[in-house]
């Protein structure tokens, strides 16, 4: 039999802890493939977050540390500043990055830390059971917005790449989506650009990946991909918001 498709070597044999249909697996694959193709695996330290991907180091086989909730960019800064030859990336959810860890994220970006952040936007707090996140859409029902997110009570969704693109520190700021094969191919390109920004020491790089959460959205995987396309992408559009010279 001819082998025509397999998991990247960097992904371990371990079964993931993710729900059926969760795009964390797709994101892990894109990261693993990119690290391999760019020959970065052995140099890499991934700073994992608190959230559904808290066990990420079981699935992507690089050196790894497990940060406190929201502190990944600070921890990555600490590593990178004393070990500039290491390739240091964080992997964070929208609660971790945009709520409790927004200060660490914005300042790492403003300082132009030579680290890369992969930011998973699934519109809620998956791990703790589907509470409102800073990215929850207006009207979206979560376990803590049982009547739907209302601006007067809960404010508005936060657009992290658009915010970070106003700073001078980031070298590459983009948003991609994981809802279709075309978008996934594009997401991988964006991830590789972000990695190259760090490899070339150009500055901070971040890619937001519009994801889904079938379990907490109470939808099938296919329905949740459709919702991402129809409802989320119009609010969180795909794009490259800041690309400085040298990023490719």
């Amino acid at each position, binding site marked *: 039999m001819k082998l025509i498709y397999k998991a990247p070597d960097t992904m371990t044999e371990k079964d993931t802890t993710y729900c059926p249909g969760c795009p964390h697996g797709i994101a892990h694959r894109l990261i693993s493939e990119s690290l391999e193709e760019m020959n970065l695996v052995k140099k890499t330290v991934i700073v994992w977050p608190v959230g559904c991907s808290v066990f990420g180091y079981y699935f992507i*086989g*690089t*050196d*790894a540390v497990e940060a406190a909730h929201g502190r990944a960019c*600070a921890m990555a800064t600490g*590593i990178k*500043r004393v*070990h500039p030859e*290491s390739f240091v990336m964080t992997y964070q959810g929208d609660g971790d990055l945009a709520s409790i860890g927004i200060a660490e994220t914005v300042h790492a970006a403003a300082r132009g830390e030579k680290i890369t952040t992969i930011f998973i936007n699934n519109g809620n707090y998956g791990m703790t059971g589907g509470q409102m996140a800073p990215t929850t859409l207006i009207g979206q029902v979560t376990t803590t917005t049982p009547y739907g997110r209302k601006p007067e009570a809960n404010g508005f969704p936060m657009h992290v790449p658009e915010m970070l693109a106003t700073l001078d520190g980031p070298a590459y700021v983009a948003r991609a989506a994981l809802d279709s094969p075309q978008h996934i191919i594009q997401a991988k390109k964006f991830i590789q650009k972000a990695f190259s920004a760090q490899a070339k020491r150009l500055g901070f790089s971040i890619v937001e990946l519009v994801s889904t959460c079938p379990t907490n959205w109470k939808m099938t995987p296919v329905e949740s991909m459709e919702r991402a396309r129809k409802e989320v992408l119009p609010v969180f559009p795909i794009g490259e918001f800041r690309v400085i010279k040298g990023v490719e």
Partner: protein
Amino acid sequence: MGEKILMKGSEAIAEAAIRAGAMAFYGYPITPQNETPEYFSRRMPELGRTYLQAESEVAAINMVYGAACTGTRVITTSSSPGISLMQEGFSYIANSDVPCVVVNAMRGGPGLGDIAPAQADYFQATKGGGHGDYHSIVLAPHTVQEQCDMMYDAFDLADKYRIMVVVLVDGLLGQMMEPVEFKDWADVKSYKTPDWATVGQGERSNRNIITSLEILPEDLEKMNLKLQEKYRTIEEIEVRFEEYKMDDAEYVITAFGTTARIAKTSVNMARKEGIRVGIIRPITLYPFPYAVIEKRVNQVKFFFDVEMNAGQMLEDVRLGVNGKKPVYFYGRLGGMVPTAEEIYTAFKKQIGG
């Protein structure tokens, strides 16, 4: 050892840390120790080492945590409100078995309090502070010279046990100008990345993962038991204290840091009047020198504990005394520093003077 240099405590501590091998500093400004990070910001770049002003103490301690995971000698310095913000990081650092050094120049609290010298963070430093069952080694110098010598011990102990070491000082030690003599420079060129460090797998056959997470209770219990084992070893071999004029003492004053230094003058006043009193000065606040307290219990009539707080180390003194003799207390609060006369007067009251 070199020649004696006249230096302010808050700058001397930075110079000592640098000579002891601090390769990275991450911190956030706070009075009364701003001269310390400022000094690091001048010196670290000169030596090709890392200095970074973080956006908060929360970020600073997590940067320290990250650098510690690479096995790099790393330090932060702060004061009480900043140290409160770092407690989350301390707890993670403890259960990750990574080494680092933290200096707390304690100021008056609670809350924003004031910027005057205090010792009210004793509980927080010695009993944990953050969540979970953990300890940091806590060192309490009482002179600028001792503080400088101790920075070498702090880094060595941190590396030896892969633990956080807290150097507990106060604004008085920081503001004091004293002649200091620095020990020899640590040979930082000989430092190698430890085999457990997370810097990328490189040539290693295994990959390294540093985490404080262990989701199965039976495994987390094992992790805790290992930590406890480390603490028992530290309690057995790392206890340090000073006994001052204790040989013939009928009374003992217990005090640490700045208060111990002041109390030495009080003891000399008493001795001039023929009162035989000595001092037990814990140098490691954790591990606490219970054994020396126990040893002196039968010799003395009572214990007199002096602190710049409402009676925190007092609880450990009482544990050591174990009800066998009275333990009296004198404390000043909110950044007030007791004078030697004041301590002597309060002490004399207890002997009926």
